[in-house]
């Protein structure tokens, strides 16, 4: 069957079940009531005054009675420094547990060591929002038994609530916790900020273990994860590589090209009609995306604009803007650098939120639905404004869906920033290799060689032209870039489906096939 953007989707995949095709950004999301099974919380009980503390993670996992075919979840708030997920898998493997579904909120370079567990069938399914490095390569060539499901941040919450992901064991790292499992990421030597993703796992998993390197006196104050969800608590020497967890403050890029693209994007925002008091804003942490915040900051000061709120992955740069009074508040589901933790802890206007509140398409208060402007990156874009943030130039999995499609669907203005070409590779294609965010939800693509406005937004195009922005037809831009780069050769792909891209509403928007020659 074909979905709404013309991708052939299998109706059923062994090990994953029946699939629903993507039908458009809002077509599958029914307001008020959703006709799918809603999973209730697990009934748990503890006798009075029984300690939850275990001597080590192995003991805690044993107490959770692991079994073949179980689903294990972790969070990715520790970024590239995470040491908890690998430790959990190693222990389960030593116990002889197999056929595991791994459902970490994202997978980073810290998880390259998972490859052998895929190869021997210990991990057979993966649900996640991002896959990179050696793990991405391994999945791309077909080493995972069943296709990986790549969901959005909001889609993960939905998958929990519908039972698509049924967590049996959640091992959640915290930078501070007490003996009952009240836990936080906002203080302690390994502070990493918000625990917005982990909060969901704690609420809906059958067994929850808090792992901390900083066991504090009861009660842990303030805390994000609450004790009544927690089964066991483990004190460990380390939750990971502190230098990669607490990696300092985010710096604005020095790349002239990224800065140029960011300057143009800020100009687009200024003349979009949304640049006014009370605006809300989200920006990514890397390259040109974060640099947009630098120029927006200058423009807001110049025009005396005070915004309402920023959301999302929060950088120290966003915190600076909050402290300067440029925004009233920040809603923080994930903190991108260590400097943010202090703000989470001390500033009442820096509000930690769960991923449910951040981006779940099936609730009544998703922050992404209240968003005015979001600036997002891209690996590729196409003439229909579809965006790929997951597969690289050889078709290999090397990125993250994250909150890309969540924010794009809700924002009044979705701006995608990317260079027109990287090295010898054109970025504007007839069709991106993998659609993560559908063009229907993308308003503007900003490159150094011109700004492309979705034809569905003629008024926006007119406003930008009037302001002197170089608006170009995306087809013309593609031709111009290909004159310099040529047209890349077709990718060498097989016929094995290695991953499915799940749109935030649970439908399948694209299919990723195995790569034959991964260079």
């Amino acid at each position: 069957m074909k979905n709404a953007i013309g991708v052939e989707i299998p109706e059923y995949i062994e090990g994953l079940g029946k699939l629903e095709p993507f039908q458009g950004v809002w077509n599958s999301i029914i307001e008020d009531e959703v006709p799918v099974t809603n999973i209730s919380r697990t009934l748990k009980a503890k006798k009075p005054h029984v300690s939850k503390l275990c001597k080590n993670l192995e003991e805690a996992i044993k107490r959770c009675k692991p079994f073949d075919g179980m689903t294990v979840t972790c969070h990715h708030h520790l970024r590239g420094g995470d040491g908890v997920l690998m430790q959990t898998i190693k222990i389960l493997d030593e116990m002889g547990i197999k056929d595991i579904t791994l459902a970490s909120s994202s997978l980073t370079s810290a998880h390259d060591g998972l490859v052998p567990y895929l190869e021997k069938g210990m991990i057979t399914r993966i649900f996640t929002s991002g896959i990179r490095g050696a793990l991405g390569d391994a999945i791309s060539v077909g080493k995972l038994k069943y296709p990986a499901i790549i969901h959005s941040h909001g889609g993960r919450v939905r998958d929990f609530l519908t039972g698509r992901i049924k967590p049996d064991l959640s091992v959640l790292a915290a930078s501070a916790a007490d003996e009952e499992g009240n836990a936080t990421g906002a203080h302690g030597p390994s502070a990493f900020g918000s625990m917005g993703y982990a909060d969901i796992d704690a609420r809906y998993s059958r067994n929850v273990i808090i792992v901390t390197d900083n066991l504090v006196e009861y009660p842990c104050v303030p805390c994000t994860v609450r004790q009544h969800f927690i089964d066991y608590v483990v004190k460990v020497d380390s939750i990971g590589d502190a230098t990669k967890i607490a990696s300092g403050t985010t710096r604005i890029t020095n790349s002239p090209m990224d800065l140029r693209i960011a300057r143009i994007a800020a100009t687009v925002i200024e003349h979009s009609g949304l640049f006014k008091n009370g605006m809300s804003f989200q920006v990514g942490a890397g390259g040109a995306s974060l640099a947009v915040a630098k120029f927006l900051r200058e423009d807001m000061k110049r025009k005396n604009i005070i915004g309402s709120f920023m959301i999302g992955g929060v950088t120290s740069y966003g915190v600076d803007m909050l402290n300067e009074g440029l925004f009233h508040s920040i809603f923080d589901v994930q903190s991108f650098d260590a400097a943010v933790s202090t703000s989470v802890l001390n500033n009442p206007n820096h509000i930690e939120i769960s991923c449910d509140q951040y981006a779940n398409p099936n609730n009544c208060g998703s922050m992404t639905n209240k968003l005015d402007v979001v600036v997002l990156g891209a690996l590729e874009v196409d003439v229909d404004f579809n965006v790929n943030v997951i597969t690289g130039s050889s078709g290999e999995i090397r990125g993250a869906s994250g909150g890309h499609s969540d924010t794009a669907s809700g924002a009044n203005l979705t701006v995608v920033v990317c260079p027109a070409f990287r090295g010898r590779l054109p970025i504007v294609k007839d069709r991106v290799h993998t659609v993560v965010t559908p063009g229907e939800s993308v308003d503007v693509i900003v490159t150094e060689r011109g700004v492309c406005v979705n034809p569905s937004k003629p008024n926006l195009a007119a406003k930008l032209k009037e302001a002197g922005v170089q608006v170009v037809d995306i087809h013309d831009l593609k031709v111009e870039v290909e004159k310099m780069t040529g047209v890349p050769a077709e990718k060498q792909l097989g016929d094995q489906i290695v991953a499915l891209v799940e749109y935030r509403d649970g439908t399948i928007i694209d299919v990723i096939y195995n790569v034959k020659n991964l260079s």
Partner: protein
Amino acid sequence: MLYIPGNNPAMIQQAGVYGCDAVLLDLEDAVALNQKDAARILVRNMLKTVNFYDTEVCVRVNNFHTPFGLTDLEEIVPLQPDNIRFPKTETVADVKEFMKEVRRIEKEHGIKNPTMTIHVMIETAKGVANVYDIAAADPRIDAITIGGQDLTADMGIIKTPDGVGIDYARKRIVMAGKANDLDVLDTIFADVNDDEGLRKETEYIKKIGFAGKALINPRQVDVVHDVFNPTENEVRKAYRVYSEFIKNKKAGIGVFAIDGKMVDAPVVQRAITVLEYAKIDLKEIEKNAG
């Protein structure tokens, strides 16, 4: 004007997208001796193929007294970039010799109506001494520029942040340029991480009459534009001055007042300069005022 080394293909292909008014593709100081031929061939081919959009393109060739100068001209002049820069110009004779070769090459290639203009670069004490004559040496010269690094080296001094060592040269070159209706461009600011220093220097050179500044990094573009671009209030005021000037001119009045302040020819000329910087079409104002 953004300087780009002539042997850097990645930077040249992006030269037109940084938002600067002009780029200088450098075959001279930015290119090592063993890269001169490669740079010349690269710049030649890039001029044929790269879209620089509306960015003016200047090529700095090597001086005639080097083994590379004439070959540079042979390759670049036929392509007629917007301008060609003649470095280390010291005398009128230098200019005459340079222009003789330029015109010979254009003739050999059948270029009857050459569009390429000439930028002369003053980088030695001798050049500063002769700058009035140099500025008037050929009608195709439309800009004159100071090379601060080479000039301080020639003078045996260190270029300091306050620019005191080259202050006389800057002002003399500005006067020579203004006397001949040339654009006068300032030297580079070497510290790409010092935006405040760049701003301060740019504000100064704007005050003493320079029309622009050489840049060595695209990150410097916004600061320089910010200094040179008139503010919204300045543009509004200039618009009003010019508009009133047109109306009064039609009534045969040369001097008039706005808000109690006298407006005469110099005030009008300054208003025109502001409007030109803001890229506002004077004819539109004339039409509306009529």
